[in-house]
């Protein structure tokens, strides 16, 4: 039965997340935007208290809606919250039962702990199949060499906690995509070094670093999925596709993040207007609406449209239905909607929007990343296009 009602437990969890965002994120939002790379220690400790409420991350509708609330609070701080993150999602999606137990257990312990994922390299971003980091098998170990950039929470995962990073490397460059495998590198492993911490446009409370692997040795069992390279021919990408399934789980979460930032801006605009006595008159014919009302209603529709697509993608995942198309749809729409909504908010609010006295300009900067990481809007559009056309990557480049 089509239903949009949340259970009382889900409602309570979402409300708790909202309260947390209001009390512990909003008050320090500006500070950590202006003090990039400073560790929000107290906030991290407070976040640990959330675990009894189901944690920061998780799969399912309520978890996604909690992410929306946290990002309504502050998207950068949300990414600084301890948890398995994208690395954890990859372990969960393609690890064995033993691996899930071994790698994810730490996130349930008392000390803050982060998970990260390392894919992008200096010379390639969206073209993930072009990565040149290598993993070579030597007896019972893999030896990893290469450089990864833009690793979200990489420093917290590898230096500040007993965390882990899922690193994508090729075991056979000639095999193309089929040779690409994810490996779990735990904090404290010799041969991995955190370098350059990036200075960013937004989400500044989130650490973004370069990881350098120099003869980094990890146990053979740290490979996620099969070590075999199915080299029937170069177009056999079954392994790659399976690995990419991680994104089907994470893209709707990025969509939820985008939606949270967008709603922060939307709420602020509506509150500001209401203080001036301007109420949006829903139900009026468009010829009678003011330009301002039309703008706000458009922002609100964009928010709704993105949220509906996000909810569907998350719901499908929770029902174990394949959601590759729907998760990319949600990601495209939410990334773009949040970008547009926050930009419009700055425009509408004029001097209040552009000023660092308020948070709107920050939300505009924060929002933009959602249209870029975990697959740019364009890459996700390509995924959607191939799916609806039933085209291979050769048929639609």
């Amino acid at each position, binding site marked *: *039965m*089509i239903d*949009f009602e949340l259970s009382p437990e889900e409602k309570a969890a979402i409300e708790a997340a909202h309260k947390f965002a209001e009390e512990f994120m909003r008050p320090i939002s500006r500070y950590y935007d202006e003090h990039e790379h400073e560790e929000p220690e107290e906030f991290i400790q407070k976040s640990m208290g959330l675990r009894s409420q189901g944690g920061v991350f998780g799969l399912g509708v309520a978890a996604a809606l909690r992410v929306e609330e946290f990002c309504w609070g502050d998207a950068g701080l949300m990414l600084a919250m301890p948890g398995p993150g994208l690395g954890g999602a990859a372990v969960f999606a393609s690890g064995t039962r033993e691996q899930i137990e071994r790698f994810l257990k730490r996130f349930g312990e008392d000390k803050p702990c982060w998970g990260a994922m390392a894919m992008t390299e200096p010379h390639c971003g969206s073209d993930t199949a072009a990565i040149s980091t290598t993993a070579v098998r030597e007896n019972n170990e893999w030896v990893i060499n290469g450089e990864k950039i833009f690793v979200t929470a990489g420093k917290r995962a590898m230096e500040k906690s007993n965390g882990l990073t899922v690193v994508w490397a090729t075991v056979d460059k000639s095999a193309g995509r089929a040779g690409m495998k994810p490996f779990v590198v735990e904090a404290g492993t010799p041969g991995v070094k955190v370098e350059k911490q990036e200075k960013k446009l937004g989400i500044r409370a989130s650490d973004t670093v370069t990881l350098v692997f120099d003869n980094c040795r990890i146990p053979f069992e740290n490979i996620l999925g099969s070590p075999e390279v199915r080299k029937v021919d170069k177009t056999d990408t079954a392994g790659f596709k399976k690995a990419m399934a991680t994104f089907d789980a994470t893209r709707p979460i990025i969509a939820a993040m985008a939606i949270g930032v967008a709603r922060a801006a939307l709420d602020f605009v509506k509150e500001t207007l209401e203080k001036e006595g301007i109420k949006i008159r*829903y139900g009026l014919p468009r010829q009678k609406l003011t330009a301002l009302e039309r703008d706000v209603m458009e922002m609100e529709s964009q928010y*709704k449209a993105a949220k509906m697509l996000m909810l*569907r993608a998350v719901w499908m995942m929770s029902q174990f239905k394949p959601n590759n198309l729907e998760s990319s*749809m949600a990601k495209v729409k939410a990334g773009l909607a949040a970008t547009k909504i926050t930009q419009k908010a700055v425009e509408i609010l004029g001097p209040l929007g552009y000023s660092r006295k308020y948070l709107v300009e920050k939300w505009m900067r924060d929002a933009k990343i959602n249209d870029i990481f975990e697959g740019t809007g364009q890459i996700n559009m390509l995924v959607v296009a191939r799916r609806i*056309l039933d085209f291979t990557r050769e048929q639609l480049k």
Partner: protein
Amino acid sequence: MISFSPTEEQQMIVNMVKQFATDEMRKVYRECDESGEIPQRLIETAWGLGLVSSCIPEAYGGAGGERSVLTGVLIAEELAWGDLAMAMHILCPSLFVLPILEMGTEEQKRKYLPMFCGAKFTAATAALIEPKFNFDPNALATTARKDGNTYILNGEKCYVPLAAESEVILVYAAENGQTQGFIVEKGTPGLEIKEREKNMGIKALATYELVLKDCRVPKENRLGGDKGCDFNRLLNCSRVALAAMAVGVAKASYEYAREYAKTRVAFGEPIASRQAIAFMLAETAIEIDATRLMAWEAAWMLDKKMDATREASLVKLYADDMVMTATDRGVQILGGHGYIRDHPVELWFRNGRGFATFDGMAMV
């Protein structure tokens, strides 16, 4: 629990309507658009599906099915996918039946609902739109003035579907500035049905202008009697119906353009192999889904008897824009061929533009 799965029963109805749309509507819609006529046989077959009458309680001779806006929205999309003009014709009696069913007095229900439980299509309609650019359903120029035991209606209406053949018309008019509905039976003195309108699209649907000149109806004909009606809810039920229909039209155009783009070869490969084309299609697919889900949510709220003014208005405006963009792209992707009436995309393009105008012309 959040869920995006229709019930088994809803799915059965959707499949049935989709089958009808494919087998019947899609076979003749071009001819109908050219001739301005819909075969009566098709209308009767549709009537036989019980889409209008199924929700009429047994006490009034109906099937006693559940009244669900959500189910209505699912049906409206499929019908509009088949053809918008026919969809509006088929569902036209609902413009009268649903307000009576939801808000009519016992006497009104007893008098009028049995008319729609027969084996044959019975036309009835509603008159809301007025011929001016800034028409506002909540600020009508048509007036209703009480005079003893009667109401006197004065004003002009347009885009009244099937007005000429309707047994009864629900005329919306401003009574002391508030929109109320008034039942006007065929042949009531003072009701003049003008010539059939000529529109840019939905050409197979017969729509008319009406003139009400000191048209008197008994006071019992006020929808809901002394209590009146919850016009806002009726408007919202109409908004979600039209939004769903916009989704249906957009989907028709999108599917056609997608198949065309996969087979039309230019520069040695299908045009869909170019991102310029592929991305237009992908974006359309995303917007169609988003609009559909927004319509579902608003319909779900209406079924819960919640005030859905915000959601219904937002999705209606969004759908108006979405369907125009989608059908425009349909024409664009076919290029010169899209402009030729051998292909249906120009028809959907004309129909798509209408949604910004079609207030209250469909209801679920």
